């Protein structure tokens, strides 16, 4: 059983989706629980991918195909997970802030958060404070993750944090910020709960705050 979990993990890290799907099916048929496959193979695999990306060993395409390999295993696991005791870690809302149309960083964060076992609601780019607030009210996420690529839109980030405050939702969500011009200092100034300099750091922060 241990080796099967390892094989799935290795196949995800290598981005070999056909292998992942085949071994996951084989493992389920052999009686391995979907929860174990999720928590002992897929999530740890994406953690390895995140670390490798963070240290510069992996590049974007390698991370993308690993995430895709995991994604393709999920439809097979999902019915079993629903029956078992598997629960997603928490819900997170991600979006690139109003006035900013860059989505690469935000998409990487989404991918790594999903890979780490979070449910992610992606609001896309150019997201207004109102859209964040509406989603917080409707979805009750634990995290709101704001992305900005250009200095100009860091001001939107500040306004969104203020709007969440004014809407009285501050105690209900934790706000994370990131993106090329964003710094820890800026995060402190606008009252964000955490800052991360890459997607792996964002996942680590969320894990720390979820534990």
């Amino acid at each position, binding site marked *: 059983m241990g080796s099967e979990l390892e094989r799935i993990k290795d196949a995800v890290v290598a981005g070999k989706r056909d292998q992942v799907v085949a071994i996951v099916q084989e493992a389920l048929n052999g009686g391995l629980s979907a929860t174990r496959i999720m928590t002992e193979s897929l999530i740890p695999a994406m953690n390895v991918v995140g670390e490798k990306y963070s240290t510069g060993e992996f*590049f974007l395409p390698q991370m993308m*195909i690993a995430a895709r390999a995991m994604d393709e295993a999920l439809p097979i696991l999902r019915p079993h997970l629903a029956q078992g005791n598997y629960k997603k870690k928490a819900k997170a809302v991600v979006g690139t802030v109003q006035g900013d149309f860059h989505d690469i960083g935000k998409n990487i964060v989404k991918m790594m958060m999903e890979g780490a076992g979070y449910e992610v609601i992606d609001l896309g780019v150019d997201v207004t404070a109102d859209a964040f607030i509406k989603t917080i009210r409707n979805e009750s996420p634990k995290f709101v993750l704001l992305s900005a690529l250009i200095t100009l839109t860091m001001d939107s980030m500040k306004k969104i944090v203020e709007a969440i405050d004014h809407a009285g939702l501050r105690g209900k969500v934790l706000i994370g910020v990131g993106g090329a011009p964003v710094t820890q200092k800026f995060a402190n100034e606008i009252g964000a709960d955490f800052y991360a300099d890459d997607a792996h750091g964002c996942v680590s922060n969320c894990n720390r705050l979820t534990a």
Partner: protein
Amino acid sequence: MESRERVMTALMRGQPDRVPWIENDIEEFLQISLMDGRKDYTPGELCRKLGMDAFGYHFPSGGEGTHTQALQTKDSIKDAFYFPKKVTFDFVPPWIAEMGVVPETGRTFIKKPLLTSRDSLKLFDEFLPDPDHPARYELVAKWIDKYREGFAIFPRIRLGSASMFESMGLETFSYLMYDDPDLVKEIHRRFAEWSARVVEHLNELDFDFYWVNDDHADTKNSWVNMEMYEEFLKPYQMIVAKALKKPWIFHSDGNLFPILEGLLTLGMDAIHPIQPSAMDINRVKAEYGDRVCIVGNIDLNYTLTLGTPQEVEAEVRDRLEKIGKGGGYMISSANSLTDYCKLENVWAMAETIKKYGKY
């Protein structure tokens, strides 16, 4: 020394009379502010007012129209090629993508990349204008004759890599690298061959150098590793690189260190913008300064946009003294002078260059 000679000396890694100042772009709103609200100035007037040594990009006096072609797509770029209403020095292929427009600013952005399958290759015919159509080249040639003065002049082009990344989307690009590598190569080849054809025409005009804009990286890392670069990018970039008959500056945002050795084999004369949040310019100078001219590094994330004039002066002075030492450096922002740069900071940059830029 005239501006043109100053720029060309630095481009060849020599030491001119002072560190040249050049910019890849100055957004028109900022240009107009720098010119005290005027819209009828010549490129030379703007250069003289700032103390800048080169021009390309676009000016309000070039006529009405979209400010830049960099983000144009199907219909607008065909219009700009066949019936140009505005003089710009941008000769880049359009994004093959569905575009969106921000109503307040008119800025365009990519809503949906369209090169996602073999079937989508037919879009090249639909989107790319005829690179041999003479209208734009003739218009720009007249402008160069009229406004050249003693400045260095450049057009902006692409190797085609950015066109590929943006028209495919990084996700599709990544998947197809593994699922259908030949399709990725075909897409890059088609963009590169279009650019190479454009370059054949530009080589005949009185330009001094090319500014070749192809983003390959984010602040963390380049989007591909060296092995991927060698297989998927370099052979097609080389098609354009070989067509260039004048010196050229290569531009990509982000951290290029993982593929820089590969990029340099294309034969560029300079590299820009050495984004401070992504690359240490001292390392670039120490490791590559004897092989390529360095352009850029004045921070846009904070210094020019949020900092004080004193902070701008300190940063500009530091680069002039350390990176300018011995020549082979041109000062520039770490991308372009955007509308959201503080006006007083741009003036602080200009003043500092005048004060401390002399060798």
